[in-house]
């Protein structure tokens, strides 16, 4: 089967800083993958390269066999670590915007999640707190029926109760046709939902493994192994 995400000798430099230093990677469909690494390890850079928000210095990144472009954007649902919401729409209007542009967007699902998280669809985006903005963005992203979800720090800014609901949403969305890649350093919170992990440090992959393997062979939790690998 064709990998949903593939990096071939992928490099990205910012000036003299090698943010991504020659990565080779294949992610298969139907998995929930944790992209784990300390701050500044290159997680966000890889995800932005996959969305063509950055241009690789050299090498290639392929989504479902294609270079990032209009076709891949139709099947990728991306949650950036930034707030991209404008200051003039209401929640309702941005939902309309998404269903206008993405044919795989499910408005019903979005309204359902808004209700569960106690968000008023008529509220203006600019009046939302930072945490609620993050929730709205996550709802928008998870209401698509995409092939690949790229979630950059999805639970960083929200309270633990919402965190549980969000993780639940991610799992319930998951099916054998879709893949979820979650970048985070909050490992203990998401460990229970992951199938695979990719450890990344200084723009290079230091370990790829299934979570079961880590537990069975090394007898450790992912969190414990992470602390060991990235010991300061």
């Amino acid at each position, binding site marked *: 089967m064709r990998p949903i995400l593939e990096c071939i000798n992928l490099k990205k430099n910012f000036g003299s800083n090698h943010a991504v230093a020659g990565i080779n990677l294949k992610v298969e469909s139907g998995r929930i993958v944790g992209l784990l690494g300390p701050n500044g390890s290159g997680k966000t850079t890889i995800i932005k390269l996959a969305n*063509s*928000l950055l241009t690789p210095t050299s090498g290639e990144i392929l989504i479902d066999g294609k270079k990032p472009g209009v076709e891949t954007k139709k099947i990728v649902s991306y949650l950036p670590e930034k707030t991209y919401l*404008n200051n003039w729409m209401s929640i309702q209007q941005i939902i309309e915007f998404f269903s206008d542009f*993405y044919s795989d967007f499910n408005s019903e699902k979005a309204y359902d999640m808004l209700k569960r998280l106690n968000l008023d669809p008529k509220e203006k985006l600019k009046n939302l707190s930072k945490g609620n903005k993050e929730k709205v963005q996550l709802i928008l992203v998870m209401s698509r029926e995409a092939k690949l979800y790229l979630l950059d720090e999805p639970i960083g800014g929200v309270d633990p109760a919402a965190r549980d609901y969000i993780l639940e949403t991610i799992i319930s969305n998951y099916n054998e046709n879709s893949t979820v890649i979650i970048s985070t350093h909050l490992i203990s919170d998401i460990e229970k939902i992951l199938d695979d992990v990719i450890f990344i440090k200084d723009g290079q992959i230091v370990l790829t493994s299934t979570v079961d393997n880590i537990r069975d062979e090394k007898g450790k939790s992912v969190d414990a192994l992470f602390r060991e690998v990235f010991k300061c």
Partner: protein
Amino acid sequence: MLGKLLKYEIKATSRVFLPLYFVLIVFSAINCLMSLNPDYFSTAQFITLTLYILILVGMFVASFIVMIQRFYKNLLSEEGYLMFTLPAESWKHIVSKLIITIMWIVLSCIMSLLSILIIASQGIDLPEFLADIRMIWDTAYSYFGTSLYHFIIQMVIGFIVMITSGILLIYVSIAIGHLSNNHKKLLSIGAFIGIYIVGQIIAATLFIGNYGYSFEFKIAQQSPYPFTLVWQAIGMSAAFAVIYFIITNIILNRRLNLD
């Protein structure tokens, strides 16, 4: 996809322009009513007239600011994360913003004319006004003959091409500024000045090269009006616009590096 982008571009910008147009028309109506007594110029009249002029100027300043802000903020700052992950080619983003900016500039010009007519309407006798317009037309016609239509078409096309070229010059400057890691604004301003100067030099060289020392003679030959010369100027402006567009698109396509 272009249609949808245009729709949201109008939504995003009309909340600035529609209230401005409304206030402009209201103030021109107030000015019209206040000028009932032409012998007496009151303080209130002075204030409303000043406010009207401020709104008029503000409308064109707003067009300029909105043009820059929609391109920079919506595409190259955080909102770009949303816009560039939509399944739309980058040229459609440029075209949608360009078309809507042209639309607002043209509408603003129409609204200014309309507001001036409203203010002046008090002292105008309609049949007399129409007769005056008729007279202007006749005078122009006697000068140009049938080429008056040619003149009008050229003016309209020239106006649109100049606006388009000006907007794209600003877009390409912002896009070039985006290539810098740390000095985006500075590089944008530098690019604008640089491109403008180079454009002027190219224009001057081409036209003098083409017409040479007999410039005035050649113009005099193109009687009653130098249509060919003006068409050449419009053509060159259009060529610059195309170049600006292509460079902007290449940068957004292949050199996009959102912070």
